[in-house]
């Protein structure tokens, strides 16, 4: 199984890596690039812990081959904060105690940001369905949904200035 050379942008930086043809983007990020913020919970696309942005879509990086991202843009949890400034979602997840163990948190944040980028004023139901592919076993989702609702409101307020 000859390795494939891939060139891609991750969190704005250019990376070149070699990977096996059957190696997933998640394995590449974690084991080759050293970005371990994306987690493997299932390797079958059922838990969302490995969510990353591929171009403008949120995807499960366990269901993307490393070879596929040649020439594409990948954004991960490690790229969400702006330097030292946390994204409002990150800040509010802490403030609202929207995490307990924190393992699913990177995936939730990436997916929630994708939602707010697309829909700045989601209803509770829209949030719940958008995030249905992100499993959390600790929180019962209550505080996660509240943190997203609050962040959306806060960001709309800022947008209005």
């Amino acid at each position, binding site marked *: 199984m000859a390795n494939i050379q891939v060139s891609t942008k991750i969190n704005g930086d250019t990376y070149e890596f070699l990977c096996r043809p059957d190696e997933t983007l998640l394995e590449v990020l974690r084991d080759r690039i050293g970005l371990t913020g994306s987690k493997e919970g299932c390797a079958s696309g059922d838990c969302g812990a490995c969510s990353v942005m591929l171009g403008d879509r949120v995807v499960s990086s366990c269901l993307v081959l490393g070879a596929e991202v040649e020439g594409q843009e990948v954004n991960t949890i490690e790229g969400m904060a702006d330097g030292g400034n946390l994204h409002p979602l990150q800040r509010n997840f802490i403030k609202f105690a929207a995490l307990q163990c924190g*393992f699913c948190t990177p995936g939730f944040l990436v997916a929630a940001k994708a939602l707010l980028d697309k829909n700045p004023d989601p209803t509770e139901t829209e949030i719940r369905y958008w995030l249905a592919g992100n499993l959390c076993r600790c929180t019962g989702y209550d505080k996660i949904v509240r943190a997203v609702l609050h962040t959306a409101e806060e960001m709309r307020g800022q947008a209005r200035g």
Partner: protein
Amino acid sequence: MADIDRLEKVDGFKVVGTRPNRPDGVDKVTGRARFGADIHAPGMLIGKVLRSPHPHAKILSIDTTRALALSGVKAVLTSDDFGDVPAMHQATLHNVMAHNKALYEGHAIAAVAAVDVAIARKAIKLIDVEYEILPHVTDVDAAMAEDAPLLHEDNFTSGIDPKPSKPSNIATWSEFGHGNLDEGFSQADIILEREFTTEATHQGYIEPHACLATYSEDGNSEIWCTTQGHFLVRDTCAALLDIAVSRLRVTASEIGGGFGGKTVVYLEPLALALSRKAGRPVKMVMSRSEVFRSTGPTSSSSMRVKIGVRKDGRIIAADAHLNYQSGAFGGFIAMLGAMCAYACYSLENVRATANEVLTNRPMQASYRAPGAPIVNFAVESVIDELAVELELDPIEFRLMNAAKEGDRSSYGPVFDQIGLIQTLETARDHPHYQATLAKGQARGMAVGFWFNFGGLTSVSLNVNFDGTVTVSVGRPDIGGSRAAMCQMAAEELGIPYDNVRTIIADTSSLGFNDTTDGSRTTFANGLAIIRAARGAIRDMCARAAKTWDIPEEAVEWVDGCARPCGSNAGDFEPMCIAEIARKSPKTGGPIAGHHEVNAEGAGVSFAVHIADVKVDEETGRTDICRYTVVQDAGKAIHPAYVEGQYQGGAAQGIGWALNEGYVYGDDGIMQNPGFLDYRMPVCSDLPMIEAKIIEIPNKGHPYGVRGVGETSIVPPLATVANAICSATGVRMTQIPMAPPVLLKAIEKNNKQV
């Protein structure tokens, strides 16, 4: 002077009861936090496990030649690599690697370490195992049958006198209760007897088991792993590999959920043994399928419950018999179930008996209030049915029979101070219970009990020269407990929350700490931290006294400062922690406190859950429309994380009630070892879960803390079942109440009506 043993609740909390940001928050939201699989070591190998494809089979031979010959394979491990172990560790050893027999599908047979994951996967397939397939049994009732295949030829049921003459799959029999059942039932006006079954569920933590082990040539070893108890990992691995405890240092990674499932070792001894053979660090990570097939689950069960009441609403006799399926090795879950069965009630005549039944399934592990939710489903369903028969409000009926201080508990001892009645009354008066039902919805409730534990605890607290404080604890933080630790230290020392940092120390840095389970962490760590802080305060007061040249008794600690008191009050300006700490090199050296204790007095707790549901009677689908948890926390140190425990427990219980469950084929193979078909609740399945914290102080803790982690999973099964019954008129006796099961029951009921 600070009194280390002062245990009464302190008034006027400043930090306790607030909701500060957790110390590990930023690491967790940026992806920086390091969990079990997030670590690499130079020269690291990847380990993989070969697992049995058969539920029950004799291992005739294992040939590792072809695997070892594969380029890049550095070690292959079988049970031959382990020696004899003390009796108490034998089941653990035989579970981490099958010994002569594979006892369940997924049982570890061999393991390899190779230079990368692709080679390790390939090598696994090159291990040749010859099996003699044996008949298997996965059902709890079938396993108790006369002619059932035996898992262990040498298992004679314990707890029965005289000892049975024949071996069986019943590992243990246990019995609890008091009074005279026959007499009780003879006085009853209504007697209901019902049978129930429940299926096994998995703890379902999202982070699979993972570890990195390094065995050094000089015998010193290290393990990094995701666990609820790294001291337990250390002591177990040391015993299994016959190495001195002092030689093995275990560091707990951040842990991605456990719920009881990470209180057992699986990969750690294998990784360490592989590292010993290969001479290189070995990392092992389970796949999700391995997690389902080889770790965790709780028991499945069959149960019979019989309760008699008088017309005046008094329960006069109660009996229960439980058969809990405990997987391939015996456990203690059935016994705990029997103890919890009737713990909510004040009963003169009560009995609960239990069988712990061996089957060809993975060894069951603790799952949040182990054993309690299962029997609670059965008992609270019958209680609910009786309330309907008696035309009593379900909460009023429970209040009429609720256990209170001085009553003899159904599991034996008399209750001391307990808060069941306040919990029930709060639930009764709660806006949810008082609210008019939305159209098409119906309501159910149930009450649940759990013990809560304390246990072995060792902490240290160091005052840094700038007056900030570092606390080291020895229990992994699963749900934000570090925040509560900082709060309690800050409260006691009278300093800001942000001036305290709590870390989880490795096993070489502290004395033994029991595992993070049994809802013990905030209770037991907290108790020790408060005492450690009081020790540091006593030292700081003494140093101030010497500086001022006044008696130690004439110094008190207020708001983070030593100040003269009594006849010396006002003689000197207060000396605050930063100043005392800065001067400490010259006043006796570093200032620290520490405390080692077997924390007792955890205090039992009760919860009432209320659910409004909607049932689609054409498809058997149940939607949870509104849900409320009312539970006693003693004292909520960080209320947001207490609420989180209530909400999380409720969500897990709802999953158990409706859609989760192991599915086995006739072939004894688990059919749903993935999140696709093992259906845990997703975000869109649930409403907001209202968490109502009651605070009835536990006199066993300085601030009144009770454990809160487990009780919340006890009532949901019955709560949802009772709501479904009031929606449809159908009394479900089977968990999960998945749509095909519920629809069948509804249609049967419709035909009868």
